[in-house]
């Protein structure tokens, strides 16, 4: 038998105060950024045009920017890296046909260069608004549905811990996206919802074990029961996180540009989802448990 992390006895709960501080800071920073500067939204939500074009020869980004500016197009321009130096992402708004506008500008100011359209995403302001509403609704509704499900299947203290972990994971992932300057697009929203599902999945496995153990180990302290349960599920937690991590990593490295932000979000979400099952979900459940005991007058630990 090839085993990792078997028979561990790490006193996880002892260190939960540090985790509260670390997670609290991360979440606070994300919320602060979210409500002041806000994330960069993709054209899906802002409206406008995202063009991916390939030029017949490598053109320095500045020359392309000038060519467009000369035709009155203020585009945010991003040259791709690696083997795709001849590819650019352009974000702008225009009255006319966006592809036409770029082709005319290049033909006029960069003689000998031709432009091939790889991708055009043009979203009108009204559609952008609709998608924003729909996305917000989808995220809130699915979090609500998970909350109800967990609330029915588990006791209150667990449900609250699980949902706290869920919000933690989604928020920290959003923070990582903002910190790396990535855009929030429809696919990134899909990733966030997947992370929500994964996070609660992971938490449930730990909770199931806590519930099972708390029946058998009634004499033990709550924190001890939690530690035992977390340690017993630790190998499973790490192995599953590792396989999902491997899959997300493959998408990140080989999945192409279109999926890069999505797989980045998945990687961050998996790492924090694993951490939060222990340190946010279980730790909060433990503290609520202790608080409930105190109220009932049971001697606290």
């Amino acid at each position, binding site marked *: 038998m090839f085993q990792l992390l078997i028979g561990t006895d790490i006193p996880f709960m002892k260190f939960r105060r540090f985790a509260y501080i670390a997670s609290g800071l991360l979440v606070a920073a994300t919320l602060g950024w979210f409500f002041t500067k806000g994330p960069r939204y993709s054209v899906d939500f802002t409206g406008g045009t995202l063009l991916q074009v390939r030029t017949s020869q490598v053109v320095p980004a500045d020359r392309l920017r000038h060519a467009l500016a000369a035709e009155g197009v203020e585009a945010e321009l991003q040259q791709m890296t690696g083997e795709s130096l001849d590819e650019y992402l352009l974000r702008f708004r225009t009255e006319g046909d966006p592809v036409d506008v770029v082709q005319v500008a290049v033909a006029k100011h960069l003689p000998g260069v031709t432009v091939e359209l790889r991708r055009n995403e043009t979203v009108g302001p009204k559609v952008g608004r609709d998608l924003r509403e729909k996305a917000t609704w989808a995220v809130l509704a699915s979090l609500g549905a998970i909350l109800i499900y967990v609330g029915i299947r588990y006791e209150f203290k667990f449900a609250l811990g699980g949902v706290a972990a869920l919000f933690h994971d989604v928020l920290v992932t959003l923070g990582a996206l903002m910190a790396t300057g990535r855009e929030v697009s429809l696919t990134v929203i899909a990733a966030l919802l997947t992370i929500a599902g994964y996070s609660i*999945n992971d938490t449930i496995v730990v909770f199931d074990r806590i519930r099972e153990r708390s029946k058998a180990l009634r004499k033990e302290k709550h924190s001890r029961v939690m530690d035992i349960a977390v340690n017993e599920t630790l190998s499973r937690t790490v192995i599953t996180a590792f396989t999902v991590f491997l899959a997300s*990593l493959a998408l990140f490295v080989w999945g192409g540009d279109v999926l890069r932000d*999505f797989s980045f979000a998945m990687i961050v979400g998996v790492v924090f989802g694993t951490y939060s099952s222990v340190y946010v979900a279980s730790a909060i459940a433990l503290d609520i448990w202790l608080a409930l005991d105190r109220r009932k007058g049971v001697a606290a630990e």
Partner: protein
Amino acid sequence: MTRSDQGKLIGVVLVTLVSLWILWPSYTYYSRSPAQRQAMEPAKLAELRKKAIKLGLDLQGGLQLLLEVDKSRLSAAEAKDAVERAREIINNRIDQFGVAEPLIQIEGEDRIAVQLPGLTDRVRAIELIGKTARLDFKLVRSEEEQRLLFQRLDSWLASRGVTPGADTALARTPLTGLMLDQGFIREQDLPSAQQLLATPGLDSIIPADTQLLWGDANEARSGMTGRSLHVLKRTPELTGGSVASAEAQVGLDQTNPGAWGVSMKMTPRGRADFARVTGANVGRQLAIVLDDVVQSAPFIRDRIPSGDASITGGNIDVNSARDLAIVLRAGALPAPVEPIEERTVGPSLGSDSIQSGLTAGLIGTLMVVAFMAIYYQLSGLVAIGALMLNLLYLTAAMAYFGATLTLPGIAGIVLTVGMAVDTNVLIFERIREELRSGRSIHESVRLGYDRAFRTIFDAHSTTLISALFLFQFGTGPIKGFAVTLSIGLLANLFTAVLFTRMIYDWWLGRGKVERLSI
């Protein structure tokens, strides 16, 4: 083997065979090169394509448009089925344009979503779909009437001190001063003229049944380019409804015999009307107006009983003549439509995406498979078998339900691979625990499955909840992601719980097993 084991085995074998059978058309379709597909019988090819897994526009390239029907100027009765009629007409146009497998759907109250796979000429397609194509035959007011109206406009504008730009020379004749010839305005003066005509209140001095409309762009007169301002009778004599057929043709315009145009044949009713109108107005001009732009305004020399008419103009080339013929045949849209969203993926990016999606999927799966085999040894191989069956069922379900595979969908499959092994990991870890606590192999396997099941069920349910919400909200690619994720989860419950359990029962049932490779 007990009877229930036999049942399970038959179940798994049956589902696997059915899946392979469902996937067979996908295999035959995608293993052929485009040239080989071309060589097939069209009916057979269409049948095969219908049964094969569909690729999303992001993978095969193509154009996706969302159009909004502007019902603001329609009466309540007209507005009722305007979107449905618009959809039908767009459908007809695309049919005649010749795109394989288009998808045209009404979305919400007043939107139409159009998907054109594999299309390369996006500008032409948008023009074809979005053109209202309202055709009117309108009488041109006489020279005298035109002159009088322009004079009235001039003095009205002059009395209000409105002049084009800062040109004081035109203070008394702001409008006609810009005209080179009756109604003709040079290209550089067009913005000024258009601004003049937009002066508030100007409409009130134009007679009710008279209308000012611009001519086609790029008209040339005495060596200069510009556009003409036409004075027309507002009520049309005939409309596009009188047109029975339209063809693109060369040589319709005698002054420019090499130019393309569209010739139209009228319905019997239209023919009679056309004969009556031309007969009653010999010597006057009859303007052919398309979407409020005057295409041409030929003089009526004689009564025309044949009902033949044509559209010619400087801008029409072979493609636009063909497209114009299509829209005239298919009919006018009941109301203008406006593209409010467009997503185009070029064919090169599509095939790159397939390539990178497959590479990522393959490498991701291999890494997970390698890890499982090393960590759980023979049991790991059982889990890998379950994983492969899972992927087989997932793709078969997609083919069966006609679901579309998108790039996010591939991501969903890769994630399914990552998460699918979780079920086995849960079971295996549980079995190991029971083994460590000193139970027999039989007992450990039984308990491992029983105790892990509840957790597995809860974990799958919550992930399924988020997948269903994704599906609800999703547009295009996101929907593809939600579909693969949900089907993958369901397939996973089947393979991980039923299939692997069966393997263990068979393994342990063969005799005394000393050591479980897990």
